């Protein structure tokens, strides 16, 4: 480092320090301002629809831009069903993967396995959608849906024409997208369980699975639940892949084969074409509802993960 030059010039450096501090504070406040702006934009732009329909907006199922009547229930329903379906499929898989990577796999395989599952998270949504349209949907239409319809049609969940495109396709593609998130968090909370806990259970004569069940999973369950909820947050807000395969039809059907619609998809499809103030406002209100729900879900998830990993240094998933 250069010396000789007197580095202490009290007056000027104090001013410079002050300016620097304010600039950095400004950047930090930008983050606050952005969230504020999001809330402001969503609230003001949805005002019109809120005043026209009130709470009923979320429970009515007519969506009729021609006569300016809007009810968001089909989208709320589609969002809930597709996300829940995704979690039902993804959570057992994700926990299985996390258990295998942290407790069972040989040490040399851990890094590569962790990396590959995380690679799933790096694939853009639109590419999942593309793959789903041309690979997953034909598979569903030709094989899986006729099979489910034949043997499980009596449940009412799998009846009707197997289009391929529909709620089931959306649920499956969402499940594939949610797995890396849930499994990453599960791994994080499982590694946060103290090693002594494992050794203690093993010393009592437990097999490896008994050790995992009683020593690890039981201690990590709050955090795993957090991961599941974080996955839910992702599934609720996921747009492109779902829009490409869910069928985009404003209807509520019991069968998972039927096409549906989600909150994010309706915004994606109709926002740039929405003519009329009430129409646009109704779409923004759908967005506001989605925003509030995902925020609550994410905060809850972070709190749950924190209850398990608190006191641990933040770690990357290598």
């Amino acid at each position, binding site marked *: *480092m250069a010396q000789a030059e007197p*580095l*202490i010039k009290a007056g000027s450096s104090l001013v410079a*320090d002050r300016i*620097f*501090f304010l600039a*950095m*504070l*400004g*950047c*930090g*406040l*930008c*983050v*606050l301002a*952005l*969230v504020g*702006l*999001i809330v402001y*934009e969503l609230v003001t*732009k949805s005002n019109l629809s809120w005043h026209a329909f009130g709470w009923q907006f979320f429970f009515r199922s007519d969506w009729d831009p021609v006569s300016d009547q809007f009810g968001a229930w089909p989208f709320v329903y589609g969002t809930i069903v597709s996300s829940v379906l995704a979690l039902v499929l993804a959570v057992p*898989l994700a926990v*299985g*993967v996390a258990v*295998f990577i942290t407790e*069972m796999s040989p040490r040399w395989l851990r890094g590569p396995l962790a990396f*590959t*599952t995380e*690679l799933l998270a790096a*694939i*853009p*949504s*639109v*590419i999942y*959608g593309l*793959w789903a*349209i*041309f*690979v997953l949907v034909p598979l569903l239409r030709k094989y899986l849906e006729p099979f489910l319809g034949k043997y499980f049609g009596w449940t009412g969940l799998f009846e009707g024409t197997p289009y391929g495109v529909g709620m089931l396709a959306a649920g499956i593609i969402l499940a594939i997208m949610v*797995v890396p998130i849930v499994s990453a968090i599960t791994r994080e909370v499982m590694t946060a369980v103290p090693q002594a806990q494992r050794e203690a259970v093993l010393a009592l004569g437990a*097999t490896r*699975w008994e050790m995992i069940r009683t020593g690890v999973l039981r201690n990590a369950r709050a955090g795993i639940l957090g991961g599941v909820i974080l996955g839910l*947050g992702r599934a609720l*807000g*996921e*747009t*492109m892949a779902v829009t*490409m395969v869910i069928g985009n039809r404003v209807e509520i059907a019991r069968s998972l084969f039927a096409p549906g619609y989600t909150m*994010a998809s309706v*915004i*994606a499809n109709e*926002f740039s074409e929405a003519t009329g103030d009430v129409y646009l406002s109704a779409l*923004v209100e759908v*967005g506001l509802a*989605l*925003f509030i729900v*995902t*925020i609550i879900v*994410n*905060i809850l998830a972070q709190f749950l993960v924190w209850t398990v990993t608190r006191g641990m240094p933040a770690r990357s998933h290598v």
Partner: protein
Amino acid sequence: MSSTAATMGLAPPRVSLRRRLTNFGVTCIAAGCVVLVLAPLCAIFGYLVYKGIGSIDWAFLTQTPKPVGEAGGGMANAIAGSALILLVASTVGVPVGIGAGIYLAEYGQNRIGNLIRFTSDVLNGVPSIIIGIVAYGLVVIAQKHFSALAGGVALAIMMIPTITRATEEMLLLVPTSVREASYGLGVSRWRTTLSITLRTATSGVITGVMLAFARVAGETAPLLFTAFGNQFWNWKLNQPTAALPLQIFVYAISPFDEWHRQAWAGALILIVLIVVAVSAVRIAAGRGMLKGGN
């Protein structure tokens, strides 16, 4: 374990067949889960390469889209448009994100700091389509038409929280003693932060920036009603602009085989860019280049 127990004169642990079978069964199930999860990954990459590689040719990389029904044409304008939008996003998002990260790490041990940390996590969880609505309200309405600038702003908003938290984490890894050494030489605080602390953590901060970049590079939803898409070349910030993910979306849901072929080609290019970025970061991290002063 059983041999030590035997030498100590204890009965070797008897594990019943049922328990051993359960243990074995669960191990198999867990391994099965891994296989089931990796299968779609392989299928996606396999299809991308299989469908995409034959479709990428010189025309695809250099031409703009042809009208429906004509063969040929390409996505050159979409690739350039994506570059333009990402340039805008990085120009806006990277300095603000790093600045906010510096604030959190160096001055943020107080209530405002906690509030910023919390909101940045909130911002991280906001669905991308909502960011699109907001950028539409902020930029598109003000400009009165769709534009590359609006797309860039939307992506910048998505980059900021990731970069902020990564920067904070990396700066906190730099030991206090390094800062104190600098103060001891009489270097002012701002100079210490920029030339010593941030310098030490540079590679970690770059990792954060690259991850944020990779995350937004494939984003489509926030561009739908901000950048909007364009069939022609555009280098102006205030005009609608094509973007690679947007073009893939439009082509994928179209009914034309020729467009489907190009969608696969575009997807292959996009994924290669993203995987290269992410793996480069991984390799750098694995070599210990990012450990900072720790």
